[in-house]
């Protein structure tokens, strides 16, 4: 946690971490069940936002189709819970199959009887789908706005496909998880939900450290290079297709984990996870929080969603206007997002404008670093 202008010492960082962990541990005792559940869901959304930040903020790939991978992770989790809780139903298969006269379990449900397989499937399947899709797109050098349109089109394809498959995955109704069983208890029960909250908080921190590790060092620098000048990266001997495929796949895996955690805490997964606005919202969280600042993605996802539920409770139907306004504000006034603004020259400029700080007379870099070394000739 290093900010350029607001420098944090080791001690403050330590104190902040203690506070965060204390809050996470204590949250179930402080917050009402309903609020705790909301916070848990929004924390899980922070993980998909981290993925968006990796591909968009760092690599310059604006994907409007992260909902695909989010939903895939959710379906994997829901399928496991449904299949392992279906012993009382006819044919020992999930109840909804009876509605459509299906007697035999579709083959792809079988492996989800295994908890180990399911735990891997949650992130491996979305990552593989993302990797395959990404590779085909990147190999053909499709980028910029065309990439965005393509990912949105892919999202619609998946949305329509899942909507229509009643006999396979209950189509538009989705798969419910809150009445299923886990460790002999209802998934929707308070104790299991509390566990999921802690688990989510832990995974957000893990995902944050993982993302930091990915963008730290040379690999991350190549990602930034691809974002800023892809041909230059190519002429230096790197194959951008590989790097882009890997990072898109990582973002897909993160989206899958996020979707699974969101599903078990909201009690249902359905094709609604793959609507166009939801995937665009993911981008807005990152844009508002701060592109290219991983912490910004987490804060953006959690705070915007929390604000959304608070505003919607007080003034129903007004949220869309506020969200739109927020996005316009960020695009026009804070292109680096809130955190990007705070880390850069933003606060200094604001203080200057308010007359609270004297203007600097030389270039900022000279003033800050006291370094006047030019291109010295020998």
């Amino acid at each position, binding site marked *: 946690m290093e900010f350029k202008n607001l420098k944090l010492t080791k001690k403050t960082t330590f104190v902040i971490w203690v506070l965060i962990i204390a809050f996470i541990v204590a949250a179930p005792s402080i917050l009402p069940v309903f609020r705790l559940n909301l916070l848990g869901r929004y924390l899980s959304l922070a993980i998909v936002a981290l993925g968006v930040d990796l591909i968009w903020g760092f690599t310059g790939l604006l994907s409007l189709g992260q909902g695909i991978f989010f939903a895939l992770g959710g379906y994997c989790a829901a399928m496991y819970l449904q299949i392992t809780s279906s012993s009382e139903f006819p044919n020992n298969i999930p109840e909804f199959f009876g509605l459509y006269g299906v007697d035999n379990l579709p083959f792809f449900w079988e492996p989800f009887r295994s908890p180990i397989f399911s735990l891997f499937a949650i992130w491996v399947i979305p990552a593989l789908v993302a990797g395959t899709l990404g590779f085909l797109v990147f190999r053909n050098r499709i980028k910029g706005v065309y990439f965005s349109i393509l990912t949105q089109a892919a999202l619609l394809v998946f949305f329509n496909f899942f909507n229509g498959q009643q006999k396979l995955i209950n189509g538009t109704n989705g798969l419910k998880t809150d009445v299923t069983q886990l460790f002999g208890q209802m998934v929707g029960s308070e104790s299991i939900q509390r566990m999921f909250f802690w688990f989510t908080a832990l995974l957000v921190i893990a995902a944050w450290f993982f993302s930091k590790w990915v963008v730290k*060092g040379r690999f991350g*620098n190549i990602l930034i290079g691809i974002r*800023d000048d892809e041909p230059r990266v190519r002429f*230096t001997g*790197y194959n951008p297709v590989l790097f882009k495929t890997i990072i898109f796949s990582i973002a897909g895996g993160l989206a899958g984990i996020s979707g699974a955690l969101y599903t078990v805490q909201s009690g249902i997964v359905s094709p609604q996870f793959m609507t166009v606005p939801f995937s665009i919202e993911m981008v807005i969280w990152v844009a508002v929080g701060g592109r290219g600042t991983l912490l910004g993605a987490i804060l953006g996802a959690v705070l915007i969603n929390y604000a959304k539920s608070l505003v919607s409770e007080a003034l129903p139907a007004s949220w869309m206007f506020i969200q739109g306004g927020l996005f316009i504000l960020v695009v026009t006034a804070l292109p680096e997002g809130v955190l990007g603004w705070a880390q850069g020259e933003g606060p200094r400029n604001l203080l200057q404008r308010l007359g609270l700080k004297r203007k600097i007379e030389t270039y900022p870099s000279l003033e800050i670093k006291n370094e006047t070394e030019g*291109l010295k000739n020998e």
Partner: protein
Amino acid sequence: MNKNTNSLLSLENITVSFEGFLALNDLNLNFKKGELRAVIGPNGAGKTTFLDVITGKVKPTKGDVFFKGKSLIGKKEHKIARLGVGRKFQSPRVFENLTVKENLEISVSTPKSPLNLINKKIKNDQLDEIEHLMKVINLSKKINSKAGALSHGQKQWLEIAMLLGQKPDLMLVDEPVAGLTDEETDLTADLLKSLSGENTVVVIDHDMEFIRRLDSNVSVLNQGTVLCEGTMDTIQNDKKVIDVYLGRPEE
């Protein structure tokens, strides 16, 4: 096949046509190992297209390019770069959001696979190489500055250092002194001269004083083909070159 075994790079009958417009027209060029060569020509003569063909950015309509005896046609840009072809662009193209050191790390790192980069620390000899390069371009004190904060001349030099870091056998240098002061221009010319011998260096530029200082053979391109080749003195007295490019001195 490549007939001239002594040559590092040869372009044979290269024709590039952009929807009927011939950017390169039956171009033949040969570069010997360790040679320093200047390529000049008026705007639209095909200088940059010729670099695009070598580096794989543009596929020629006709003809072949041989590098170390192997054809480069159909190879991807990054593969050609790994074979030992380095390119410096017309306007300095450094990664502005990365520091000087990070820019150089990108150029000296090998192997250039994602796994190597994400897993391993940069090797010690590569760090030494970076240190050495920074001394060459006099940017040792700016090691942790963002490349975007450098002056134009410093960016030009950083890009040349990045090119050196790739350890290419062939260095293609497009307008290295555009926007540099006279002093910087002279230093750049000396630097490029010192690099030839070990590396083959191809310099494209407009600045005749700079080309003269390189003291190398010069190829003049015009309308996508070689108009004349020789030393600076031969070129300057060639009637065709004067007509299309240099212009007559006013009498």
